[in-house]
């Protein structure tokens, strides 16, 4: 008896099933109709129909960010694939493990400028970890296996698998490889023990040590190891935007976020420390400001990263440690226990005092108002109403920074935003992905009236899939961050940063079948939030449109090109 035959489309579905795929976010079209037919017939996972391919990729990305698993998106050829590119580039910049399956025109039509044809592999090449064009049916299963392996191992990232339509209709046997060997790809996992010891010796003998953590701690699930080590060392910690939640914000060693909108104490400590350890972070321009200014202070730098190319890319590193952050931190904890007796914490006490003085500046304080809603106040109240335990997504701009500053995260994978690419429009699809992955959890999307309109069509998806996300629209009738830069650096010339002709967000939400509320007074903020998160609205999407202070700016701010210690602080201070 010959082995059972499967169509290419069925092989795609069975392969995804073998990878324990729970959700596929997608949008059908000509080149993927065979795959959609197989989804319909085989029912191996839940398909989430979005309203635009960009949102499919963002939602799959958020599923991954909030769970640590590989997100899966499915799009058709041509415009399906090009619409997905923003989502793919967003995931690539933040190292999110994803597999994106795209349909392609039939093999015989490739290169003929066929209907809905584009060179998907060529277009996505610079914004993926890797991509594949599958050329024969026998390659489908091994290619999907490779795609998942590459996406989730090493420094994670999105992988595109482009599958021509004719291949999905052919038949072949199906055998999913249990293991895959790529001779050209062997990410380093374990850190060099000698380097780890050297790093620890340097840290415990320093007078002004500082810890700077990034998204790698979250992606590498290394929070526990990090927290354990830092508590033992007793050193101050700061985190990048992407790393928030990697170390509990309620620990007193945590100095808050650093960088362009970091706290005074975090930025000053970064600049003034004598030994810095960077953990799963990459010294990017929004984090260290001007690299020449940063390097004008002598200090030794230790860098743990899984990607060798991240080390000494922008800043010369004295002690590089290449490896999986979790594994390296585990080793550090062990080696520290043998060195602990040599650690005289008294030599660091002056440094701790200095940091306390910087903290006393309270750089995040702002003047609240009875007249007009302060955006910071809304975020603080949201934190209270959700007991600090919600999944928070944001878009990009002022509201993103206020969310990062005023909603402290004590757990990893609770904070979902586009840190690297800075993609406006991710907030709502991110909330969808997080809510699907965590149906019982509270999910809030902190956004602004400009960003939310970039993927507003997804309110329809939320209705179809009963996603009770809460939208916190900090509506200041400006593209706030653009306006802030125009105020600071362009002589108040507000070129095209005003959001004229805004929709009535309440009616808009209602037209999609959701609840909409507009809040104009500070005294109504808390009640509105309570209402949104009430038991009665547990199953409902609630769109809260907060009319906030139009003139509010994000502080502190390190102007572009300036050094970390050259912050502009709030006038209220």
């Amino acid at each position, binding site marked *: 008896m010959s082995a059972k035959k499967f169509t290419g489309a069925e092989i795609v579905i069975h392969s995804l099933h073998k990878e324990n795929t729970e959700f596929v976010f997608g949008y059908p079209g000509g080149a993927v109709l065979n795959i959609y037919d197989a989804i319909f017939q085989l029912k191996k996972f839940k398909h989430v129909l979005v309203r635009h391919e960009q949102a499919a990729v963002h939602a799959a990305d958020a599923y991954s960010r909030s769970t640590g698993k590989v997100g899966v998106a499915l799009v058709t050829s041509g415009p399906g694939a090009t619409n997905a590119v923003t989502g793919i580039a967003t995931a690539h910049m933040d190292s999110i493990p994803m597999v994106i399956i795209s349909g392609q025109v039939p093999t015989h039509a490739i290169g003929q400028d066929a209907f809905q044809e584009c060179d998907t592999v060529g277009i996505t*090449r*610079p914004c993926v970890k890797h991509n594949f*064009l599958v050329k024969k049916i026998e390659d489908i299963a091994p290619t999907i296996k490779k795609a998942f392996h*590459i996406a989730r191992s090493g420094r994670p990232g999105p992988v595109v698998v482009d599958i021509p339509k004719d291949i999905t209709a052919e038949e072949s046997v199906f055998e999913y490889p249990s293991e895959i060997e790529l*001779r*050209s790809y062997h990410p380093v996992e374990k850190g060099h023990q000698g380097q780890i010891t050297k790093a620890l010796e340097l840290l415990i003998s320093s007078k002004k040590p500082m810890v700077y953590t990034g998204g790698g701690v979250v992606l590498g699930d290394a929070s526990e190891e990090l927290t354990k080590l830092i508590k033992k060392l007793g050193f101050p910690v700061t985190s990048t935007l992407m790393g928030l939640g990697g170390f509990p914000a309620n620990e007193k060693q945590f100095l808050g976020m650093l960088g362009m909108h970091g706290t005074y104490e975090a930025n000053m400590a970064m600049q003034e420390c004598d030994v810095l350890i960077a953990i799963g972070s990459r010294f990017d321009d929004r984090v260290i400001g001007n690299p020449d200014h940063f390097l004008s202070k002598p200090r030794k730098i230790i860098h743990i990263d899984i990607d*060798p*190319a991240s080390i*000494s890319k922008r800043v010369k590193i004295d002690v590089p440690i290449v490896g999986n952050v979790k594994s390296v931190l585990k080793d550090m904890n062990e080696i520290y226990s043998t060195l602990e007796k040599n650690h005289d914490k008294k030599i660091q006490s002056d440094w701790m005092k200095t940091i306390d003085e910087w903290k006393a500046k309270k750089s995040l304080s702002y003047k609240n108002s009875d007249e007009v809603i302060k955006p910071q106040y809304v975020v603080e109240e949201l934190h209270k109403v959700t007991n600090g335990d919600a999944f928070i997504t944001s878009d990009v701009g002022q509201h993103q920074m206020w969310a990062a500053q005023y909603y402290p995260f004590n757990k990893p994978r609770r904070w979902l935003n586009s840190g690297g690419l800075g993609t406006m429009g991710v907030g709502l699809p991110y909330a969808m992905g997080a809510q699907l992955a965590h149906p019982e959890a509270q999910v809030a999307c902190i956004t602004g009236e400009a960003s939310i309109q970039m993927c507003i069509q997804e309110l329809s998806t939320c209705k179809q899939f009963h996603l009770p996300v809460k939208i916190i629209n900090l509506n200041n009738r400006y593209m706030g961050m653009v306006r802030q830069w125009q105020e600071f650096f362009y002589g108040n010339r507000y070129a095209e940063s005003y959001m004229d002709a805004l929709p009535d967000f309440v009616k808009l939400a209602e037209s999609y079948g959701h609840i909409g509320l507009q809040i104009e007074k500070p005294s109504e903020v808390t009640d509105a939030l309570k209402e949104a998160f009430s038991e009665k609205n547990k199953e409902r999407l609630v769109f809260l449109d907060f009319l906030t202070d139009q003139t509010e700016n994000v502080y502190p701010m390190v102007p572009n090109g300036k050094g970390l210690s050259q912050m502009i602080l709030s006038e209220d201070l």
Partner: protein
Amino acid sequence: MRHIISLLMENEAGALSRVAGLFSARGYNIESLTVAPTEDSSLSRMTIVTSGSDEIIEQIIKQLNKLIDVVKVLDLNDGKHIERELMLVKVKASHQYREEMKRISDIFRGRIIDVSDNTFTIEITGSSTKLDAYLDSLDKSAIVETVRTGASGIGRGDRILKI
């Protein structure tokens, strides 16, 4: 400084464009790039001549290693190596210049591989600087056409790039 980077990569469609795309996306220089399959038909050997500070070269090597299709990378400048490039030059060689052209090509150990009434085509191999020197020794107006392969390189002695 000029570096010759040699690498082995999977002999697959699109592999070349991944390398070329990396250089253009990150703003690295490419002076020349040659690629051909090796004795193992699943592998291609690529030689890239580039230039940059030590930090940039370090980043180039790391970024190349990061490409999934790249199996091994070697900076030939890290040790002793041999470099060769092949050039085909068509020069004017009308009656009164024929002897002169032959003599110069002999000095550079070039071989005349095609002759017409008015031209010689000369094949010449050597380091890129030798080929430059040959061209410099010719009267510019005598050069009709040049075709260069770009440099290939190999480590000396026991220094090998193989999987």
